[in-house]
């Protein structure tokens, strides 16, 4: 049984201009000790998916539907007090921007201790020693003395580590990381990714990693879900997505990466820009930008169906194109580039 099972999740926001369909029927599950990556461009609903699971959307203008079953409880329906006990304890979150997600007027130590003491009735000393231990685990030098420092005394990479320490201090079963390395330099990013992998091995947590960087996905994910305009367009193991992708949008994402294009050749970008979620396009939401679109794509919404019929594989795609054709195209477009690529 999966640790988290999300079924047909819908999150709509009421705005002055109408209803924004930010997440529109997304299902996925996360197994214990595994990493699920959610990939897509900005505004495709990746972050909103996470915020909804964590119950962090503003109540007054949000409409939520669907289920998010975590250890036999539906996170979308349980009462707020119950959820508060789970949040930061059994499920915790790392936010994108380490600059703004720490409180500037409290010391790092106070913020870490708070995370411990909120969920467990322990003395300040115990909370303190656990926090120090966690700071050491995320490789912050001189952890004892740095506990009394304020966030501004840390660099970006160090702040992100503090965020990770705070998220992991209660040994969560599920860690939701929303673009944890986007604001960081590559060298710092490498440090953080290495750290997250290591901690996952040590603590056995499951991770939902939200990112737009396919490189990061290739390095860390077990399963991948590709989102476009509030819907999942393709889902599968990392090998399915990188070596046998079947959705034209996934092809486009891979074709836009300079690394995967032969030297001197042009990139193959996806034309146009992502659609507005106030009035999403009819049928397949990608049809306006899809070079393969044909008549059924405009009126009919494609279902996310397992590749190769039946539910034999985890690889699923939502596309009207003939499976045979998709397989051939996918092979032609990507296979050779991927196979020959060197470090």
């Amino acid at each position, binding site marked *: 049984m999966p640790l988290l099972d999300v079924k047909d999740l819908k999150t709509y926001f009421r705005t002055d201009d109408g209803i924004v369909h930010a997440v529109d029927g997304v299902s996925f599950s996360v197994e214990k000790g595994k990493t699920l990556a959610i990939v897509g461009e900005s505004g495709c609903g990746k972050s909103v998916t996470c915020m909804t699971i964590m119950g962090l959307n503003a109540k007054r203008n949000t409409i939520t539907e669907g289920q998010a079953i975590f250890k036999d409880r539906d996170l979308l329906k349980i009462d707020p007090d119950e959820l508060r006990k789970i949040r930061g304890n059994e499920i915790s979150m790392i936010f994108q921007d380490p600059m703004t997600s720490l409180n500037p007027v409290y010391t790092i130590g106070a913020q870490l201790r708070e995370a411990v003491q909120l969920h467990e009735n322990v003395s300040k000393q115990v909370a303190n020693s656990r926090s120090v231990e966690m700071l050491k685990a995320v490789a912050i030098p001189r952890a004892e003395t740095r506990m009394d420092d304020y966030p501004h005394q840390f660099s970006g990479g160090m702040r992100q580590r503090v965020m990770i320490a705070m998220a992991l201090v209660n040994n969560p079963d599920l860690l939701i990381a929303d673009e944890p390395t986007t604001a960081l330099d590559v060298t710092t990013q490498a440090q953080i990714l290495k750290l997250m992998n290591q901690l996952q091995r040590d603590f056995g947590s499951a991770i939902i990693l939200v990112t737009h960087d396919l490189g990061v996905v290739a390095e860390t994910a077990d399963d991948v879900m590709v989102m476009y305009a509030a819907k999942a367009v393709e889902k599968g193991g990392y090998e399915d997505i990188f070596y046998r992708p079947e959705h034209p949008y996934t092809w486009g994402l891979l074709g836009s*990466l300079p690394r995967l294009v032969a030297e001197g050749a042009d990139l193959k970008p996806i034309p146009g820009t992502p659609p507005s979620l106030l009035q999403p396009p009819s049928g397949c939401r990608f049809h306006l930008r899809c070079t393969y679109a044909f008549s059924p794509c405009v009126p009919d919404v494609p279902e996310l169906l397992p590749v190769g019929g039946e539910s034999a594989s985890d690889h699923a795609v939502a596309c009207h194109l003939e499976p045979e054709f998709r397989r051939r195209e996918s092979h032609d477009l990507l296979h050779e580039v991927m196979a020959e690529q060197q470090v």
Partner: protein
Amino acid sequence: MLEEPLLKVENLEKHFPITRGIIFQKEIGRVRAVDGVSFSVNKGETLGVVGESGCGKSTMARCVMRLLDPTGGKVTFDGQDITNIKGNDLFKVRREMMMVFQDPYASLNPRKRVGSIVGEALEVHKMGTAAEIKRKVQDLLEVVGLNPEHYNRFPFEFSGGQRQRIGVARALAVRPKLIVCDEPVSALDVSVQAQILNLLKRLQDEFDLTYVFIAHDLDVVRHISNRVAVMYLGKVVEVGEGSQLYNRPLHPYSGALLSAVPVPNPNVARNRKPIVLEGDVPSPINPPSACRFHPRCPRFQAGVCDVDEPQLTEREAGHEVACHYPLETWPMADLRLEPGRVAAS
């Protein structure tokens, strides 16, 4: 025959003073943002500049553009020393070099229409009557892939990628020789980023442009550049042809930087051993002595790297590096220099 480079930068320095006191300001330190940078850019080529944030890439670009006044060194553009020129001379040079900025949201005036944003440089330099300028602007919009009828729209009506196209059109308006692109695609999504990169490449062929292309994304820089310079803490540590530098980096920092880039290919990504640098970039107020990379360098040799500053020297044709112990092999199979490696402090 050796053609004169279009842009030549020698020993460029930009130090920002740190002062104390309100009336009597006393200098108590300096941020050495750019500290002795030299490079040249030939006509029609693209020089990529990479480095982590805070390494002085943007400050260097602004000094070259004379948006900041360098505190030392010399910038020669098209055979003319522009380091200290003023007034009318500077005005003339400004027509020849333009800039595309990072943030397409902040770099366009929200209260001006697209037409006047793109046409402003044409007006300033009196390059035609109002009607001519309007026609030129509409042509430009078409060239960068926007609808010429959007002439009267405001920036907020456009998406990030479209705004960056407006930024490119603005830079292109006066037909400059040099365009300095400061992280032009880092705020954009990958699919849109690829569109802008293709556009920049096409325009380079069409208008015979020379680019200085600054970015922190190494893959993007490789894709667009002929030559690449790697900066670390205000200095250039390595310069070379793109293929030289990416296939066989010589400086340990370039190596670490390259190996830190996630590879979008799982089988490759999971089987390589990246060199993960410890620690953060030191402060440019008090940079480490001699080779500035020595506290983080896996090949650090006590008594050499922290005493003697390495100069940028040519190791192969067109491939310069500032390191006492450049890498012999790539990928870095055996990083350590034996014997006598001292742990980085």
